[in-house]
């Protein structure tokens, strides 16, 4: 059942077995998993079924470090931030889970093998109907024969794109699972139910009730045996800090760890690859490619774990963003086509037609690729356009840093709660990782005669700060980190908040380290694992 708190006169108290606070990837996954079970589940979502500016504004806050798009990077309605999810899926590497002696505060309390069965189930939740094959098998299916890279240095990396939900460009949790939530007899979803406060027992070990309120003032109380914060990488920490503000030392903050080790993948251009020849072969190897199963895949590069260990580096990956050759027949045909669509006859038409005619092979391949991937000839972008250069975009893991943190600002939101303050900090290790990775890509591409690379200024001596060159990915990680020792983390290996009997956290905020890849699949895998734990 899905109800809108803002449209009810009053609701009183809801008694549940499990109360999920937040309706994004983690909250919906747990609710879906518990649907049909004997447990009474109540999911409270601060937003409604669609984007609303007034609700979204509640996400605003204060940046005192590296800027973060607090309002734009997250979405506050059912489905949460997955409402702008790109569908890019991959598992964290096995090495990401291990303690790395060169990386302080690294190491998960569980390993990749333990998470494997949940990854398999997470793929189904993310819309994949078939089991993933090995990377080598998938590359063969895609007819990709990667260049002969030295795999001890850099190697191909594969992402899978989730299939699109009907009526959406990509897999969308809200669309995919709304009906499940509506129909499940044991699941009650309250929309526009914004967090107000927790009530705890005397010692502050047990959450007894959660008070919620709509923006128009309708209140409700949820009592439950267990509460799970599923509010996103930043909000999870904020809600714990709001709880701890009333009860210092409670809500997992006995060791002042809530909000610390806040991380994000940084993404941005690290270099430019240029070649005297067209990069046609490379475009068929490293790109977003359509598989015979109708799904899209992306092939990029990653840094070998041995190099990370030898040089004390972080994990990272790169993809190539091709720059269409404006002189190519395809680009010229695009120019003609757009001109004709715009109602004007392009100048120097004869020369342009000749250029298309003399590049007919590449033109035909491009049209074929564009048709297969649903891009029209008029669409912008270098899809299928032969290229002589490509921007190398890197995704960087961030090193855990206790000084990089989330705290509470003095300013209050429209509901009277203190807003979030972020002090996101990037370190020299991230820059050093990108420089080493780019150096290896440059060496390998030159060795193989693919092309030459120029490093972006932020990787050069005396260049601008890294933070000015890299962008956000909205992958907010680490602020309620997982560790067996309460002095090292906020939650234990099951997501239970240290020092609390019935409060759990789900989402990327529990990742002690984040690898380089998109976190959604791991969020879902951990949510499924937590759902199993809650079912016991």
């Amino acid at each position: 059942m899905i109800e809108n708190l803002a449209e009810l006169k009053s609701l009183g108290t809801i008694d549940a077995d499990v109360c999920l606070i937040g309706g994004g990837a983690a909250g919906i996954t747990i609710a879906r998993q518990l649907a049909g079970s004997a447990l009474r589940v109540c999911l409270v979502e601060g937003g409604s079924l669609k984007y609303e500016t007034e609700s979204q504004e509640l996400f605003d806050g204060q940046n005192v470090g590296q800027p973060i798009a607090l309002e734009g990077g997250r979405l506050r309605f059912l489905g949460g931030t997955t409402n702008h999810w790109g569908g890019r899926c991959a598992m964290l590497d096995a090495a990401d889970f291990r303690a790395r002696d060169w990386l302080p505060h690294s190491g998960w309390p569980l390993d990749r093998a333990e998470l494997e069965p949940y990854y398999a189930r997470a793929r189904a939740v993310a819309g994949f109907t078939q089991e993933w094959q090995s990377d080598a098998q998938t590359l063969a299916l895609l007819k990709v024969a990667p260049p002969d890279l030295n795999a001890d240095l850099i190697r191909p990396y594969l992402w899978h794109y989730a299939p699109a939900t009907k009526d959406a460009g990509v897999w969308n949790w809200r669309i995919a699972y709304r009906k499940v939530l509506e129909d499940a007899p044991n699941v009650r979803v309250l929309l526009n139910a914004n967090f107000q406060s927790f009530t705890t027992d005397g010692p502050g070990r047990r959450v007894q009730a959660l008070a919620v309120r709509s923006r128009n003032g309708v209140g409700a109380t949820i009592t439950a045996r267990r509460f799970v914060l599923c509010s996103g990488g930043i909000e999870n920490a904020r809600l714990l800090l709001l709880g701890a503000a009333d009860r210092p030392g409670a809500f997992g903050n006995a060791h002042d760890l809530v909000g610390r080790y806040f991380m994000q993948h940084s993404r941005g251009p690290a270099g430019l690859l240029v070649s005297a020849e067209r990069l046609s072969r490379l475009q068929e190897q490293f790109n977003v490619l359509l598989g015979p199963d109708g799904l899209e895949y992306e092939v990029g590069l990653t840094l070998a774990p041995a190099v990370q260990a030898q040089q004390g580096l972080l994990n990272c990956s790169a993809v190539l963003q091709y720059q269409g050759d404006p002189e190519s027949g395809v680009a010229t045909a695009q120019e003609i086509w757009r001109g004709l669509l715009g109602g004007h006859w392009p100048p120097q038409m004869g020369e342009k037609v000749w250029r298309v005619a003399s590049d007919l092979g590449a033109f035909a391949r491009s049209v074929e690729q564009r048709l297969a991937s649903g891009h029209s000839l008029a669409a912008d972008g270098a899809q299928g356009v032969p290229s002589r250069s490509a921007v190398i975009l890197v995704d960087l893991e961030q090193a855990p840093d206790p000084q990089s943190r989330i705290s509470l600002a003095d300013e209050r939101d429209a509901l009277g709660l203190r807003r979030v303050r972020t002090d996101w900090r990037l370190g020299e290790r991230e820059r050093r990782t990108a420089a080493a990775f780019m150096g290896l890509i440059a060496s390998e591409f030159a060795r193989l005669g693919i092309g030459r690379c120029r490093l972006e200024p932020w990787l050069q001596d005396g260049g601008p700060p890294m933070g000015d060159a890299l962008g956000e990915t909205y992958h907010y990680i680490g602020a309620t980190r997982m560790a067996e020792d309460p002095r090292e983390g906020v939650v234990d290996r099951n997501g239970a908040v240290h020092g609390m009997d019935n409060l759990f956290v789900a989402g990327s905020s529990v990742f002690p380290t984040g690898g380089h890849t998109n976190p959604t699949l791991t969020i879902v895998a951990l949510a499924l694992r937590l759902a199993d734990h809650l079912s016991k």
Partner: protein
Amino acid sequence: MAPVLKKRAVLGRLSRTGMGARRAFVGATLGGLAGLWLARRAAPWAPARPAVLRALAPAFADPHAMAEVGALYLAAHPAEADAAVLARALCAAGAGFDPSGLVRQIAGDWREQRTVAILGWVFARTEARLCAWMHLEGNAP
């Protein structure tokens, strides 16, 4: 070429006999070693411009650019701003100075990540040194 010529000279003098021959041997050996030392100290080779151009062809279409990159390399590595030092550095890499040797040496640099970044462009170290040689020798047209 120089070391080979000296060796021939030493072998010629060894055909004599007796004390004179021993003196001649010692003299010739010392002379040969001195010659070798002087030869290496000065410039053990004179890389043919076509060989350099061929080795640098994958990176450069314009010899002017080679010399400019060479100047920047030397600004960052002032200790190599001397033709003899540069020649020794190239020589120490051991691939020889014929065109295919230089190409092999550059390939080895890529394999072993012996690279330098100049204005952000990543070059094999041998490429950068050949550019520096072009600059020092004033070989840019």
